[in-house]
Structures are given as structure tokens and as C-alpha cells.
């Protein structure tokens, strides 16, 4: 599918995505959540989210649902990124700057290996 330049292109993309969705039924997607409370924003959460978007765009990654949410209640550990691969447990990372975000995307989301650093300790 070529680059999208209009709402018409977007409609074609939707139809294409629907077909794929129907074929795969409900096979899971990777969920990524970035905490965007006041402290998170001040600590760079917007840049972290933007880096993840850039990575998805550059690497043309399919089936990723990225969301932002308010304060995740883990003050002092922002920016926080939570990653849930299909049929896997949620993994929470803390102090995720743009470099760490890129590593999470490559090593965890693409290669499937959870990083050993920057994990939120319960």
C-alpha cells in the first residue's frame, strides 16, 4: 500500500486492515502504554512516546496498539512504559528515555526478549 495522502487512502487502508483482521480472527496485538501524568511529561514521556511512534513508522511494525494514559502511580520512576506481547504478561519499565525506548522496541517488542534493566521492581 502506498503512502497515505488523503482520507480516501485512509478508507482503503481500513478495508485492507479489516480483511487482515478477519483472517487472523482475534490473534493478539502488542499493547504498549506510556504514562503521561504531570511528572511523566516533565520527565520526558512525550519524547519517549514519540520515539516509539518513530520506531513503529521506520520499521513498519504491524499490530501494535500504543496508548497514553494518565499518572500510573509510580512517582519517581517516570517515564514509565508498559509492554504486553500477545499471550504474555505485562512488563513495566521505568525511567525510559528515548534510547531505552528504542531498545525496548527492538529487543523486547521485535525480538521478544525482555530487557533486564529498567524493570519496575514490585
Amino acid at each position, binding site marked *: 500500500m502506498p503512502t497515505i495522502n488523503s482520507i480516501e487512502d485512509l478508507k482503503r487502508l481500513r478495508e485492507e486492515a479489516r480483511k487482515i483482521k478477519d483472517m487472523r480472527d482475534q490473534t493478539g496485538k502488542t499493547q504498549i502504554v506510556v504514562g*503521561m501524568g504531570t511528572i511523566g511529561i516533565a520527565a520526558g514521556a512525550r519524547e519517549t512516546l514519540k520515539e516509539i*511512534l518513530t520506531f513503529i513508522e521506520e520499521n513498519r511494525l504491524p499490530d501494535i496498539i500504543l*496508548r497514553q494514559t494518565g499518572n500510573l502511580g509510580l512517582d519517581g520512576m517516570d517515564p514509565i512504559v508498559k509492554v504486553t506481547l500477545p499471550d504474555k504478561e505485562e512488563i513495566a519499565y521505568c525511567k525510559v528515555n528515548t534510547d531505552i525506548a528504542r531498545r525496548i522496541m527492538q529487543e523486547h517488542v521485535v525480538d521478544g526478549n525482555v530487557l533486564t534493566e529498567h524493570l519496575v521492581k514490585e
Partner: protein
Amino acid sequence: MRELALHILDIAENSISAGASQVKIYVNQNTRVDQLCIVVKDNGKGMDDELISKVLDPFTTSRTTRKVGLGIPLLKQAAEACNGSLTIESQPGEGTILTAKFQECHIDRMPLGNLADTFLTLLLGTPDVNFVLDYQVNDEVFHFDDSEVKEVMDGMSLTDYRVIEYLTNTIQTGINETNEKAIQQGVNYAYN
């Protein structure tokens, strides 16, 4: 916060927490009257007068009793330090309008910063909320309403790489063109 765009993101997060289904963001830089005006308007659950005074004051209550943190007092302080003001109009069930005004060329005025990234974070990261952006520099206006995109995508993920690329280009181009046209009309200061 290093930029006003980050404050705008923070204020919009309050609107989302308040259950808004629509958030409108107006940024108006008027060099003729030397004013930068930011308005965030939502249709969330609204606040009564008591709660408004609480969210404006950083000291009257502890964080456990309210969802809204220090973001609003910080922005209020930043506005007042630049001959400006911050006001909140709201009623329970009626939504909220937050207005922050700054003297445009005040030496202490924070840069507007990356408004495009703030808007992309909101609209891509919150698929169930409708966001509207109006960015104005004097007579030049960029208007973007994500409802058409969200209706077309019909609840499907917006974080498809092609959608990200399309929206990033549309919004960044719109803001850049507004700035360039304003510069052609003689506005001669840096936007970042």
C-alpha cells in the same frame, strides 16, 4: 516543564481524566496585541467553585484527595510571571474551559515548543477521544479535527505506521505553513 506545549499536554490529560469525549485546543499568538493565548476546552464532568479553587492552589490539599496534581498551579505561575493570567470556567456537568494568557514577547515566556508532538501524542494515544486543534498566528490559522480520521478508522488501531506517517505529516506541515506565512507577513520572532 520546558515548553508550553508540554503544559498543554498536561492540561489535556486532566480533560481526559475528567471523562471528556472531546477536547479542543486553541493556541493563538497575536503579535499585534503582544499576547499568546492558550485555551483547552473539554466536555468532561466539570468542577464546582470549590474544586476550581483547589486545583488552582498547590497547597490547600494533599495529592491523595484529588486527581489533579501540580500542573495547573505551575502553568498559572508561569503565566503570571509573564504579565498574564490563568482562569478556569467550569460547572459540574458542563465541561471545563481553561485559559492561559501570556505577554507574547515577555523575556520569561517559555517557548511554545513542539505543539505537533503534543497533539500527535494526544490523538494517536487516546483513540476514543476527539481532539480539535486550532493554531493561529495573527491572521493565519491551522485547523485540524481528528474526528474524520477516527470515524474512518472506526475503532481500529491508529498506531499503524502509515496512519502515523500521514497524521505526523499533516499536522507538522500545517503548523509549519502557518508559521511561514506569518513570517512572510512580517512576524519576525522565533517560534521555538
